[in-house]
């Protein structure tokens, strides 16, 4: 093979490209270009959506096969469980456990007492994150269903996250476990003290900020959204419960570990609250 054609000034090319990339990232982050990039992203999602569902229908069995070969142990265990379930179903003539679970989740979503009179849209989870570097989910509702950027998303137990990307028929939700997520909450006896719950990554407990040292917190205590003026979420949505807390010798803040009220790893259906933060 012959050597490749080389540019006379590859370093200049690289420098220009790096500058272009850094400029794009900066403008996107600062908001100047965000309208454009979110528009382009939304357009790409819309254009790609039919291709994706078409190809998914064809290759899903292949993906499942590959996943099966990678998770052989888990699949075998699951197989045994399923076999037992089949036997049980045959004996008791029960309806499908899977359907019952879906029905349970959907029914629970219809009776979210903490939402009050707020309007909402039910949605199905289509993907668990497109990047290993962020905790997000994709859902099957979008602008055509009234969904807009920054709207809160809730599940059975409580807050799930916030809409960070929306296209015509789909949207991406940043989970409260994502490292970029911060939720203002209240805890303790009314009117309640204020704190901020930060995500620390998918599958990890949340951490609380602004809880003064030696605050008495009992495991299981639930923290709810504060709903202060300008807050990102309406008031009163359960967010997470305390798992453990301790104060270091010289710390000014309590170190609190919390678990989300919604089971973020097994989401199938969620509800988008049609509520936009007041700016």
């Amino acid at each position, binding site marked *: 093979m012959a050597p490749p054609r*080389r540019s006379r000034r590859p370093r200049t090319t690289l420098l220009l490209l790096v500058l272009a990339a*850094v400029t794009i990232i900066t403008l996107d982050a600062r908001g100047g270009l965000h309208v454009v990039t979110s528009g382009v992203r939304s357009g790409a999602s819309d254009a790609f959506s039919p291709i994706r569902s078409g190809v998914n229908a064809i290759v899903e069995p292949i993906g499942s096969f*590959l996943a099966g070969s990678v998770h052989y142990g888990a699949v075998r265990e699951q197989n045994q469980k399923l076999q037992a379930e089949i036997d049980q179903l045959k004996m008791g003539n029960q309806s499908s456990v899977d359907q019952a679970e879906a029905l349970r989740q959907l029914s629970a979503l219809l009776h979210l007492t903490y939402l009050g009179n707020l309007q909402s849209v039910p949605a199905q989870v289509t993907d668990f994150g497109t990047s290993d570097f962020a905790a997000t989910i994709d859902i099957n509702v979008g602008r055509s269903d009234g969904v807009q950027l920054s709207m809160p998303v809730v599940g059975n137990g409580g807050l799930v996250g916030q809409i960070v990307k929306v296209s015509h028929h789909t949207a991406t939700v940043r989970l409260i476990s994502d490292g970029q997520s911060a939720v203002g909450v209240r805890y303790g006896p009314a009117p309640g003290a204020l704190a901020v719950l930060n995500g620390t990554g998918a599958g990890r407990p949340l951490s609380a900020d602004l809880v003064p040292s030696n605050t008495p917190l009992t495991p299981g205590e639930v923290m709810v959204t504060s709903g202060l003026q300008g807050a990102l979420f309406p008031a009163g949505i359960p967010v997470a419960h305390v798992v453990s807390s301790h104060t270091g010798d010289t710390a000014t803040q309590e170190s609190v570990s919390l678990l989300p009220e919604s089971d973020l790893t097994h989401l199938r259906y969620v509800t988008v609250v049609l509520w936009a933060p007041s700016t």
Partner: protein
Amino acid sequence: MNRSELARLSLVVVLFVVVQDTVMLDLRIGGVHPDIMLLLPILAGIVGGPSRGAGIGFATGLVADLFLPTPFGLSALVGCLVGFGVGLATIALDRSAWWLVLVVALGASALYEVTYGVLGSVLGQPQMLHVALARIVVVVAVTNVLLAIVAVRLVKWGMAEASTEGMPTSEAGIGAA
């Protein structure tokens, strides 16, 4: 880059996006899914050298960014750096050696993911380092080694004609898989 090469490369990029967003998203190993989009700058660097590696890495990174929740432009930044780096590192090597693609895919994939996390963190997203980086590096690097042999043929096909057609300084044979 002429129209023929642009069309071919676009086709290859679309194919990579489709495979990434369908099969690869379903395939999770230890909670991490493979990322074949970063094979594009790596292989462009091997096939085309530093300049084209950087250029194609930038362009394919922007496409990848369209479908990612991470900062827009970050994949483009890491893509052009990795494409350039791979081109530069392999410039003096015998690129026809079959093992070169595998070794480079392994090393450059790992380097890409670490750079991605570190640069993301530097550019205002500190949570990008609060992930299971070691697991991501291993899963992505190993799957990319397995897929590199097929992927390099596609990238060579995509970059083939432009280097031999209509350019007086071009040299034939780059695209010969």
